[in-house]
């Protein structure tokens, strides 16, 4: 079975002040229909750029996709698709939810107006049909009083309400995939819960696949089946959520888990990952990206480790990981 979303060797760079900034380097991942897949990493790990590339949202004048990069979405080659085809793909095959619901809605239009614009862009439905569909969708994301809500402006809504409007907008045209770029980061804990719950329900009831971009291991644990860990623009580990939480392989993943608060454990067990990410301007070092922060770093780490498949199907990019790791010899 071919995947709904298949990213192969994706490299993305931007021209910034004369230098090339390598945001994403050789990332491959797949999302199958109906799956809930997470991408986790800290700020600057390249996870958001990777996510935006799926809909080719970055300014084409300053964005370069590496040779050999390919993104296949529902059988279409996103990176080479003409603009008209791309526009049909957006919102209809895959749509996106963004981090800050306070800025994601247009202040000059009512909620109903904005949702309607999306429907009109993709469907020939009559006005009454569209209206019915919008009301139904708002109800499905647990927003009460949709008849009143459609006439409201964004500034009249709370952050949690706005984010649920964004979810309703994202699934309005029944896409096969929703890319959620840190959808809960700007929300308080209760609003986070409700957004995750709504997304989970849409996934279960309608089979919409979700690619969850986050920096929060808690979100991954609660929401995802599979997870991809990104660091320094690269994929460093990927596999099932159960496997990663039970036995993380990459030292960065281990660090991330140690840095996740656990109410059951004493506070002193909460440890930050020391150091910062190396910049990726100009030429990228051939060493492992994590070398400066890694407690296990040895001489072999001078060459970047490829993503290896372990016997149980888990993937990791570290010389020191796995039962028969070259670094462990």
């Amino acid at each position: 079975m071919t995947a709904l979303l298949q990213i192969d060797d994706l490299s993305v760079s931007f021209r910034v002040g004369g230098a090339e900034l390598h945001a994403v380097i050789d990332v491959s991942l797949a999302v199958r229909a109906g799956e809930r897949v997470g991408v986790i990493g800290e700020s600057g790990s390249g996870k958001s750029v990777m996510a935006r590339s799926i809909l080719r949202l970055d300014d084409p004048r300053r964005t370069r996709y590496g040779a050999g990069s390919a993104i296949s979405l529902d059988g279409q080659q996103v990176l080479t698709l003409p603009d008209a085809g791309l526009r049909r793909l957006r919102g209809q095959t895959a749509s996106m939810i963004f981090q800050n619901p306070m800025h994601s809605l247009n202040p000059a239009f009512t909620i109903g107006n904005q949702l309607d614009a999306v429907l009109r862009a993709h469907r020939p439905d009559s006005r009454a049909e569209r209206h019915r569909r919008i009301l139904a969708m708002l109800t499905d994301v647990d927003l009460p009083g949709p008849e009143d809500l459609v006439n409201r402006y964004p500034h009249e809504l709370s952050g949690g309400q706005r984010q649920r409007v964004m979810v309703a907008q994202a699934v309005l045209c029944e896409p096969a995939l929703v890319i959620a770029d840190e959808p809960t980061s700007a929300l308080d804990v209760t609003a986070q819960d409700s957004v995750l719950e709504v997304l989970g329900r849409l996934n279960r009831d309608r089979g919409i696949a979700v690619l969850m971009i986050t920096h929060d291991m808690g979100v991954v644990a609660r929401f995802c089946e599979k997870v991809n860990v990104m660091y320094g623009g690269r994929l460093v580990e990927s596999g099932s959520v159960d496997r990663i939480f039970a036995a993380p392989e990459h030292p960065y993943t281990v660090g991330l888990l140690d840095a996740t608060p656990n109410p059951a454990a004493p506070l002193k067990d909460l440890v930050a990952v020391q150091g910062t990410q190396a910049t990726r301007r100009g030429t990228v070092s051939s060493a492992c990206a994590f070398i400066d922060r890694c407690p296990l770093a040895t001489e072999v780490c001078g060459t970047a480790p490829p993503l290896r498949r372990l016997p149980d199907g888990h993937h990791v990019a570290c010389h020191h990981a796995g039962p028969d790791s070259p670094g462990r010899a």
Partner: protein
Amino acid sequence: MTRLYGAVRVLLILWVVVTVVFVTLRLTPGDPAELLLGPTAGRQDNAERLAEIRAAYGLDKSIPVQYGIFLGNLATGDLGVSNRSQRPVIEMIGTAAPVTIWLIVLSVTAAVPASILLGTLAAERRGSGRDATIRTVATVFIAIPSFWLGLLLLNWFASGLRWFPSRGFEPLLADPLAFAAHMTLPVLTLAIFLIGSFTRFVYTETADTLERDYITVGRAMGLSRRSILFRFSAKNSLTPLIIVVGVEIGTLIGGAVIVEEVFGLPGLGRLLLAGVMSRDYPVVQGTVLIITLAVILINILSEWLYRLITPQARA
């Protein structure tokens, strides 16, 4: 309460303006009676005639008394009678105003869509050749002096090519074609300045709006380029243009004075200028009063419109 305060403020502005005009007119050298009599005014045997004229127009009274009479008449809505034509000033303004109103309305109507298109296209590709070209043209349009551009257009299209008449005005209802022919060059002259000014405003606002997150969201949801630029973004970046148009009305009337003079259009600008030249006090005072009132009302109207369209301002 606020409405009462607003009305008092408007009256206060009008009072200050007419007073300043009243005083400056009388401080300006040149005697209306002498100007009316012409070159023979200085002759000995005309002294009696001069005194008669002064008495007829109340110019023999002291300035404070004249001011009192003027304000008293204003309070009853009487703008007085022209020293020159003997016609009531309000009637002269009534004849001239449509010309100026047409000139301004047509210029703004032509300039607004053109500016929206140019400003938006430049903002869409910031830093590109298209952006640089449009913004250079806009700056040139602002920099060109209207009287010079007017003369240039007259020279090319009226005197040279003879496509348009060089002077005068024809009412729309009397002869629509002649109306259009007379208005084309004046409207073009005024519109070019406006396009320069509005385009730069639209550019700044649109460039700012296009950076917003909700624009990315719109693109991610598959909205077309056209609907993002001219609908989704436009409602945010163009509503402030209503205020700008209101503010520019004052400048525009100043521009109209020049354009009307160049193209011989019998509008308020020419009426005002002729009044100043002949020291026709009632005409100048009345015209300035009406223009001031118009500017104030248009600004109130544009602010009201802005508030009506902007949801946040309404709340």
